[in-house]
């Protein structure tokens, strides 16, 4: 009894110090792990910075209005000419057709999952949408090729086949993002609409979709940004062309990613000594400039996508 009341002052302070702070070993571990975790972040930033830096520095060399406005038709060897107009056209056409296929299917599937989905079909759909996001892009390309080879014979190369391949990759992304957006719409809005006697389908179109249109746009833009850089499926379905082709239903089409790949593949050009119109690494310069263009397009899509949400999203609260 008396021992507890007459504890020396030094003792309590020592106990308090022991309780208040971790011992040296634990502190050291804590500091070390903090350092490692910061290091992990820095390590991940190195490739990102290096990649963006290289693409900008090497790409700007050949990036010019001329480069953007001519095709590769009649360009050979180390000619100091040629551009990516045909590839930009092909990329836009193929991606737009892919979006035209995937957005309705993806959006309606999301509507089904959020507004109607009950029971096994909804569960199976949710699961397989997730699984579908994992389809390797080259497999999507093989599928589209196999599908179109039935109708157009072996060796088919069509822009629309590439669009179908991209749709396979794009639909699950659209479904995922749209589903998330539709679930954000408060139930009170739906109930208010039903209370006014509005039928369900009109409620979905006029209330649910109208409310979430900004988020849906963002989702679609981001999914386009994701597939616009796909190379492998386009390589085996649309092939590559040197000339401008606006028609996805006829003939080969060039796209930016495949353009980058083919230019990279061709590598350096052997130039005759003293040749005036010959640049040795012209192909690589074109590849870097095209890579810069592609990154700019992707970044623009990402930026616009995020801005749409920021400025046009309804204030729900």
């Amino acid at each position, binding site marked *: 009894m008396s021992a507890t009341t007459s504890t020396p002052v030094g003792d309590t302070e020592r106990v308090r110090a022991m309780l208040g702070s971790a011992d040296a070993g634990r502190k050291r571990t*804590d500091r070390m792990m903090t350092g490692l975790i910061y290091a992990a972040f820095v390590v*991940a930033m190195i490739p990102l910075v290096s*990649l963006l830096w290289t693409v900008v520095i090497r790409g700007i060399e050949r990036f010019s209005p001329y480069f953007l406005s001519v095709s590769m038709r009649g360009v050979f060897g180390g000619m100091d000419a040629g551009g990516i107009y045909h590839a930009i056209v092909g990329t836009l056409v193929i991606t737009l057709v892919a979006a035209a296929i995937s957005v309705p299917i993806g959006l309606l599937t999301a509507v*089904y999952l959020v507004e109607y989905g009950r029971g096994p079909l909804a569960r199976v759909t949710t699961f397989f949408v*997730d699984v579908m996001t994992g*389809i390797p892009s080259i497999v999507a390309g093989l599928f589209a090729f196999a599908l179109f080879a039935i109708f157009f014979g072996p060796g088919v190369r069509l822009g629309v086949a590439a669009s179908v391949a991209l749709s396979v990759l794009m639909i699950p992304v659209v479904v995922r993002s749209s589903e998330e957006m539709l679930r954000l719409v408060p139930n009170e809005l739906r109930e208010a609409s039903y209370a006014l006697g509005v039928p369900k389908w009109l409620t979905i179109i006029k209330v649910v979709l109208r409310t979430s249109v900004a988020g849906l746009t963002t989702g679609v833009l981001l999914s386009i940004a994701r597939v616009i*850089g796909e190379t492998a499926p386009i390589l*085996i379905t649309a092939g590559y062309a040197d000339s401008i082709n606006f028609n996805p239903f006829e003939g080969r089409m060039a796209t930016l990613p495949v353009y980058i790949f083919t230019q*990279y593949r061709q590598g350096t050009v052997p130039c005759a000594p003293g040749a005036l119109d010959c640049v040795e690494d012209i192909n690589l310069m074109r590849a*870097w400039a095209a890579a810069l263009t592609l990154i700019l397009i992707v970044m623009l899509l990402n930026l616009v996508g995020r801005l749409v949400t920021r400025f046009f999203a309804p204030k729900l609260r």
Partner: protein
Amino acid sequence: MTTTASPPATTRRRRSGDTERGMSRVFRWISTAAAVLLLAVLAAVAVFLVQRGLPALTASGEELQTAGRLPRGMTHLGQLVGPLVFGTLLAAAIALLLATPVAVGIALFISHYAPRRLAAGIGYVVDLLAAIPSVVFGLWGGRTLAPVVADVWVWVAGVLNSIPGLEVRATATGRSLATASVVLAVMILPIITAVSREVFLQTPKLHEEAALALGATRWEVVRTAVLPFGRSGVISAAMLGLGRALGETMAVLMILSPGLLYSFQIFDSGQQQTIAAYIANQFPESSGLAVNVLIATGLALFVITMAVNMLARWIVARRKEFSGAN
């Protein structure tokens, strides 16, 4: 009898909630059809791959040699698919080994270490990595990274060679599986980070506060509360990353100097090849049975990635039910 019986029948039908008529029913059917179509597309992918790959599976060794353009000395499909599956798994496994610790570190950095104001911005920056097209990664990996890491690999091989009984070769060009795997690791970093981050942020605040109340340091909070809670999430995130790495084409195609060996010489060129890169490499020049051969190898890739993804999703789904977070 009939006149008195019919009015109650109609009112009963209204009361039972069957108010869906006309456009409502059409709309329900359209949206259900979209969901069914989506499943049909997935089924069609599988069916077409099997149907078009079948001729390669049933063809004789001689046909495969001549029309199927199988590499010299190979007489059945397994001799091609085997090394390809090996190369694919090896590349993806190394990528996963490199990426997972870093990704978990970044996820912890964002969820528990970075200043609150910075965290969202850092998340965007990591997502930027996901936005960069794979062909640009390939270009960068082949032209910028490969020459730089080649020296590192040569040095590593030199160190490893000093261990008796170990023979490691390294190429001076850097066009080896190790380089390709590093690029794959960078490419799968964002998805692993994103999923892990979500899981770490869901850690019950009470668990963390309880750990802090017991005098735990920040790392001890992470070790005792956050990591055990997020373990299954990290595993499934890693498997999603694995699925990505297995199917990635361009980075491997543009960096790796391919070979068809069962070889662990990851620093040497001309040793391994992955399925996706093999298909993309051969496809433009193939026709007839050779295409069927490629589609059959694609089928192998499809089966592997589907299995990995389904397993990952299954773990995620199971976790949602039993995590105790709700």
